[in-house]
């Protein structure tokens, strides 16, 4: 298809996705909303603000309507809503649901191994629960992440099902992964500026936070794009994103909150990035092997 048409559609999509999301967020920010999990008023509104995740999905549908692009649910150049579990594709679905458990637990393990006193087995018993109850954390994350994944679906339906195919057609796979990640990271910028993800108390606030969010989105975007490409469907990416957002690490239950607050953001990021990079490399090498 003509690259100019693709570019035009992509620009319309981005204007809508950013316009809808930022417009919605600025209504709250303008009224003094800050992302503070300790403030009851903020907590009450956090889930309402989180509905902004549906903006890319709305932008996707509107762009297709405005540009008279096909609205077919599945197949080539489609909205990627079909589900196909044949030819072993169900394994990709399973991988998508379980991989967040692996990388988040690995990141926490690295953090615990490199920080003395962070791992504390007395936290759960102190709050009246046996340590074995920690097993419910990943189980609950998978259950909630898959069933209540509409918000994650909202983002993935926009980014993975519309933006990434367009970017890949325009600039090739690897540049698309980086540019797509940066766009996705910048889309989060207003929320990063009010403390989402990294809080407000770190050196270089908020610019460092925005850059870190872009890095995080490039890495996570790599895995999400992989599962979308493998299945031709947006669903595994939505489930992966949902489970990822549900904080599935079992070690989180054993982390001393006071010690954790003393760990530098840089160290936390390094521990988080290492498993991501390893997974991306493994997926990429596996993909290349199959091509060869």
């Amino acid at each position, binding site marked *: 298809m003509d690259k100019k048409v693709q570019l035009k559609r992509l620009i319309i999509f981005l204007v809508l996705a950013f316009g809808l999301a930022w417009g919605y967020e600025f209504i709250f920010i303008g009224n003094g909303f800050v992302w503070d999990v300790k403030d009851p008023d903020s907590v009450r509104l956090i889930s*309402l603000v989180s509905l902004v995740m549906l903006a890319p999905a709305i932008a996707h549908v509107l762009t297709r309507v405005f540009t008279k692009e096909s609205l077919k649910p599945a197949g080539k150049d489609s909205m990627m809503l079909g*589900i196909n579990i044949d030819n072993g594709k169900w394994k990709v679905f399973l991988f998508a649901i379980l991989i967040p458990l692996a990388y988040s637990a690995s990141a926490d393990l690295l953090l615990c191994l490199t920080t003395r006193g962070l791992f504390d087995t007395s936290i759960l018993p102190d709050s009246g629960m046996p340590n074995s109850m920690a097993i*419910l954390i990943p*189980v*609950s994350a998978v*259950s909630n992440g*898959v*069933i209540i994944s*509409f918000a994650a*679906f909202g983002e993935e339906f926009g980014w993975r099902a519309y933006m990434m195919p367009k970017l890949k057609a325009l600039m090739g796979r690897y540049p698309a992964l980086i540019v797509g990640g940066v766009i996705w990271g910048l889309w989060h910028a207003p929320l990063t500026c009010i403390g989402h993800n990294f809080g407000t108390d770190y050196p270089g606030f908020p610019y460092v936070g925005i850059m870190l969010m872009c890095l995080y989105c490039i890495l996570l975007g790599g895995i999400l794009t992989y599962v979308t490409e493998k299945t031709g469907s947006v669903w595994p990416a939505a489930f992966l994103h949902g489970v990822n957002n549900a904080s599935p690490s079992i070690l989180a239950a054993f982390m001393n909150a006071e010690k954790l607050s003393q760990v530098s953001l840089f160290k936390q990021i390094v521990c988080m990035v290492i498993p991501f990079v390893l997974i991306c490399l493994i997926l990429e090498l596996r993909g290349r092997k199959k091509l060869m």
Partner: protein
Amino acid sequence: MSGLLYKDFISVKGKKLTITFLVIFAVMIAVRILMPYIFSSLPDADLDMGDMMADGLYWIIGMLLFTMMFGTVICSCPTKLVEDDKTRGRVIDYYSSLPVTKKQYIASHYIFIGIMAYVVFSFSMIWYVIGSSLCRTEQIKPLWNIAQLVVFSFALFSILCAAIDLGAFISLGSSKGKAVRVAMIMLLCTAILWYFFFGDVKDVSLEIIANWIMAHQFELSLVEVTGPFIVLSIYYLSYRISCHFCDKGAY
């Protein structure tokens, strides 16, 4: 497979259903936004009660009705899907004329109903998020938790019903499938009637239910976490049984 999903969408009159679904959702959101203004503009209205109603109760009742209405639609899907294929002749003849395997054909029905349940539940959750976030009346907040639990339970119940229904319709055929459905409904009605006749109804009130929920947080969390796995396992088991019976030519 995608074609089969689209066929199922047509079979259940998906376009009409989607439009109805979205219109009801949009109307309720509009009501939620406008309700406080309507109540505050009434000169003689009991504003405390009005505020309370506008702040949550209407919204909660609406959410429950919405979920139950479309949950019931999900429960009725198996009949429509199988009956629609039967109008095209024997089902076995129908799918042997398609470029898909028996398993793909059966899987498409299960996936379709799964997607429907997901969509209904997601919209109910959006409803819950908007409603509970805007709720400022402290007395109503526990009711939101109950309502969320009811919606969650009803979504699982719909999937469970669909699993039994679809399994019965595919494995035993339409007439026996209908008999299974009638038996299920009778069983449910009997249980409800039994509770009303012999159960301790006079002590049941919203306050007691709310207190019970607060006192059994842990057990409820456990059910909330494990419930989806149990129900989805039954759903998958129903799919495997349907495939098994289909292989034996029962369909």
